[in-house]
């Protein structure tokens, strides 16, 4: 009876993942993804990984969903997913083969032992894997740049926004260049 919650959570996560992939609307896909993230975080919590569960729930179900909805609001309604080039039966066969290979290679492993809490996540993260923390800091700075790219819209300068003096000088340069194109070519220099 211990595995009943895990089975229910697994079925829900796989169903919502399938709906996220097959849903024709991107907003529905984003919401199904949030549900998958919440269910996976509950599974992580039940497994004892409470810190990772909290991070997954706040970042995966919260931040990423907000970013997806914001990006969809910027992109607009023209978001229909076109049909794929790869035939769906072929994709299904390939995926079943890949997932079956994963299951076949990992299922014969040892059953789940009682995990020994010898080291806490904080100790491992700050003492053994300090490089990961630095990499995460660099990645977060990259994410800030990505947020700036997400928020920046391309601005096209209209003709009304250009000052008249600049417009006249530019048009004068263009007229001068066009006049220069019609000049007769100079005779080649005589070789000495």
């Amino acid at each position, binding site marked *: 009876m*211990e595995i009943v919650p*895990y*089975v229910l959570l*697994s079925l829900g996560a*796989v169903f919502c*993942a*399938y709906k*996220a*992939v097959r849903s024709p609307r*991107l907003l529905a*896909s984003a919401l199904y*993804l949030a549900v*998958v*993230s919440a269910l996976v975080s509950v*599974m*992580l919590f039940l*497994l*004892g*990984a409470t810190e*990772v569960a909290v*991070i997954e729930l706040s*970042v*995966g179900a919260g931040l*990423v969903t907000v*970013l*997806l909805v914001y990006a*969809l609001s*910027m*992109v*607009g309604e023209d*978001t229909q*997913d*076109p049909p794929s080039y790869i035939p*769906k039966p072929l*994709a299904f066969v*390939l*995926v079943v083969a*890949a*997932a*079956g290979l*994963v*299951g076949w290679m990992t*299922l014969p492993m040892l*059953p*789940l*032992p009682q*995990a020994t809490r010898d080291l806490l*996540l904080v100790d*491992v*993260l700050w003492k*053994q*894997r300090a490089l990961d923390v630095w990499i*995460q800091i660099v990645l*977060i700075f*990259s994410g800030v740049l*990505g*947020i700036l*790219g*997400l928020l920046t819209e*391309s601005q096209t300068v209209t003709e009304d926004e250009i000052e008249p003096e600049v417009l006249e000088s530019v048009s004068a340069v263009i007229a001068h260049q066009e006049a220069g194109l019609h000049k007769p070519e100079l005779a080649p220099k005589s070789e000495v």
Partner: protein
Amino acid sequence: MTLFNVLIVTVACLLGVGLYGLLITRNLIKIVVVLQLLVKSVVLAFVVAGNVSGHPGIGESVAATIIVADTIVAVVALALAVQVRIRFGTLDIPKISSLRG
């Protein structure tokens, strides 16, 4: 069926759904969604592997790093998708390719 089998089957099914989505999807934003699905299965796999090996702290720390990296990937990919939509007017990958031949 043990708890470990249930978790591994869940990881394999989520990986399969994610790979299927990657194969049939042509929309840039939906590809980000599918990549998130794949990474969730990988996070679950790392935590399970940490429990199986008897060192759950290591698996959890790697899973936390993966979550951070995946979020940054999603942010940058969404920024790229928005800029592509503004510049090319579409999110369909074959239509934004400028290479011909």
